[in-house]
């Protein structure tokens, strides 16, 4: 790392992660992989047929006899398929173990849980960091621009491959929530219930602006080389770290930052009168930036942020959101958090109004917390109670037995 001082983590020293681990996962993930050959191209919104391609995924639990207990989890911008297992690159525990696991609302003893890395990602599904079979080199910016509907189309192909017709539930937060909503708009009869958390049916101007800031930070890094850094064996660490730092602020809240750090100093009592990380909050952000670049590809970050920017369900339905959900029988649960300023409650409310106008069965809860957008990944008991009850009542209506038999 150049320029960004890393604060050692007590559990995972940053030196434990090598760039090789990350690039190995790109094409040879340590999870299941579904390969799609020339006969099964992925039809992208930009007009290109992507072929061949692969989708890396993890499953937890077992599919029941009538194939009715499958749950698809959609990950957020920088997430991946490792929902509830130790991450192969960072060695950290799964990113949603608060929700998924024994005794959790999504218990693998009850559900067959699937999570796939999105197309365009860098943890084993085909993306800009993958090898382009036509050239034998890393795709880089030659990779076609992908959208949220493209991600969902690829997931649908994976679900077909797994022999599942209808998903009992599609669950996700943030960009994952966008995929949940896209699933219900594109495949309403294949989704029995949808749990969409801290998300929106369209990316707001402010959010596009934040993403543009992040992309410009990556592109301003001289190591980016117009996206062709992989050929040179380097990675635009500094730009990507800055992008992550800026984004991370948007995942928190003023109150959460104040509670966590205040104006406290980092390992010192007096200011150094320099640009060192005097404040704890600076040190924390630098750590967030430096640990992120060790597991994430810079071009992938550009592509996935772009996919979120383009997302606008109403725009795909003549500007009328309710049309996207007309006649839908999926059971919805929409959850927002009071201090989330990235996907504020007003966005969820607009979605709920559209669902009401479509006479969809929808529950909507706003949860009081000062932890910002990130609350959906944290230990927020009220959220788990709601998720559990929603899934249980949907399971009852679906006739799912308690035991997986």
């Amino acid at each position: 790392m150049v320029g960004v001082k890393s604060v050692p983590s007590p559990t995972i020293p940053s030196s434990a992660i090598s760039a090789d681990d990350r690039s190995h996962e790109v094409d040879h993930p340590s999870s299941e992989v579904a390969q799609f050959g020339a006969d099964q191209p992925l039809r992208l919104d930009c007009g290109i047929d992507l072929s061949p391609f692969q989708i890396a995924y993890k499953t937890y639990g077992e599919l029941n006899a009538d194939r009715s207990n499958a749950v698809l989890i959609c990950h957020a911008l920088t997430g991946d398929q490792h929902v509830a297992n130790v991450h192969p690159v960072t060695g950290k525990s799964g990113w949603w173990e608060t929700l998924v696991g024994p005794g959790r609302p999504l218990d693998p003893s009850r559900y067959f849980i699937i999570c796939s890395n999105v197309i365009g990602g860098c943890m084993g599904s085909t993306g800009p960091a993958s090898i382009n079979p036509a050239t034998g080199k890393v795709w880089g910016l030659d990779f076609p621009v992908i959208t949220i509907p493209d991600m969902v189309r690829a997931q649908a192909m994976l679900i077909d491959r797994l022999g599942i017709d209808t998903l009992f539930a599609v669950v996700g937060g943030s960009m994952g929530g966008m995929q949940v909503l896209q699933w219900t708009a594109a495949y309403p009869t294949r989704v029995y219930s949808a749990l969409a958390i801290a998300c929106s049916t369209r990316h707001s101007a402010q959010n596009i602006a934040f993403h543009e800031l992040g992309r410009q930070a990556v592109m301003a890094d001289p190591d980016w080389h117009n996206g062709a850094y992989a050929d040179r064996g380097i990675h635009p660490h500094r730009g990507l770290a800055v992008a992550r730092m800026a984004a991370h602020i948007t995942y928190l809240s003023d109150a959460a930052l104040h509670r966590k750090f205040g104006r406290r100093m980092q390992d010192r009592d007096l200011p150094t009168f320099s640009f060192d990380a005097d404040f704890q909050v600076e040190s924390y952000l630098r750590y967030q930036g430096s640990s992120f670049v060790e597991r994430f590809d810079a071009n992938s970050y550009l592509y996935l942020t772009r996919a979120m920017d383009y997302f606008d369900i109403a725009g795909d339905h003549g500007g009328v959101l309710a049309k996207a959900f007309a006649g839908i029988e999926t059971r919805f649960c929409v959850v927002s958090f009071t201090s989330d300023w990235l996907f504020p409650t007003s966005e969820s409310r607009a979605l709920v109004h559209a669902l009401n106008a479509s006479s969809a069965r929808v529950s909507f809860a706003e949860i009081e917390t000062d932890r910002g957008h990130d609350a959906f990944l944290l230990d927020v008991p009220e959220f788990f109670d709601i998720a559990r009850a929603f899934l249980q009542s949907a399971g009852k209506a679906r006739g799912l037995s308690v035991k997986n038999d």
Partner: protein
Amino acid sequence: MSVQEVLPLNGLASEQSGPFRADHLLVAEMVKPGSKVLDVGCGEGDLLQLLETRGIDGRGIELSREGVNRCVAKGLAVVQGDADTDLVNYPDDAFDYVILSQTLQATRQPKVVLENLLRIGRRAIVSFPNFGFWRMRLQLLIGGHMPRTENLPASWYDTANIHFCTIKDFVELCDEIHVKMERAEALDLYGRPLRLRLPWWVWNLFGEQGVFLLSRGGER
């Protein structure tokens, strides 16, 4: 039933009949099985749960976040929203019945809300506390202060109820906006219907609350 029987005893709240409130049982009885219902101001979802046991597809709107979250945690399809501002987002004829249980008096625009109920639903069921109830009258007449009862214990300065009316007032409003009354019931302090077909003025005096089944197109 003598008039004495409908007079309330001391220290009362709505009588429970099994796990459900008597006024909820009356409302539920007005709903045809298999219909689709919106409960506006559904509180913690007790009525929706009752309707669910009868095979009715119920949805709810509730203003308080705590109420909504308890409902959702019970597996009910309830959204956080305000009757005054959010009913406009529902399309015409979306429901067979729209229920407004003990909520009318807390809305800013009861007339607009009532009109919306009968736009969204083919029928509406409205229940509200009757400010013409004799104990209310007595408190104002003799006590000289704003009435408070077991069911409406808040003081004037901290009550959410801003638009009280009497059964007579409500009947007049229904006439004014051409709403047809299909069924009307007055309940005593225990939530029991006053069984006798008594004249309006008796209901207005002895009914602690009114419950009305309404439909469109009433004539003056």
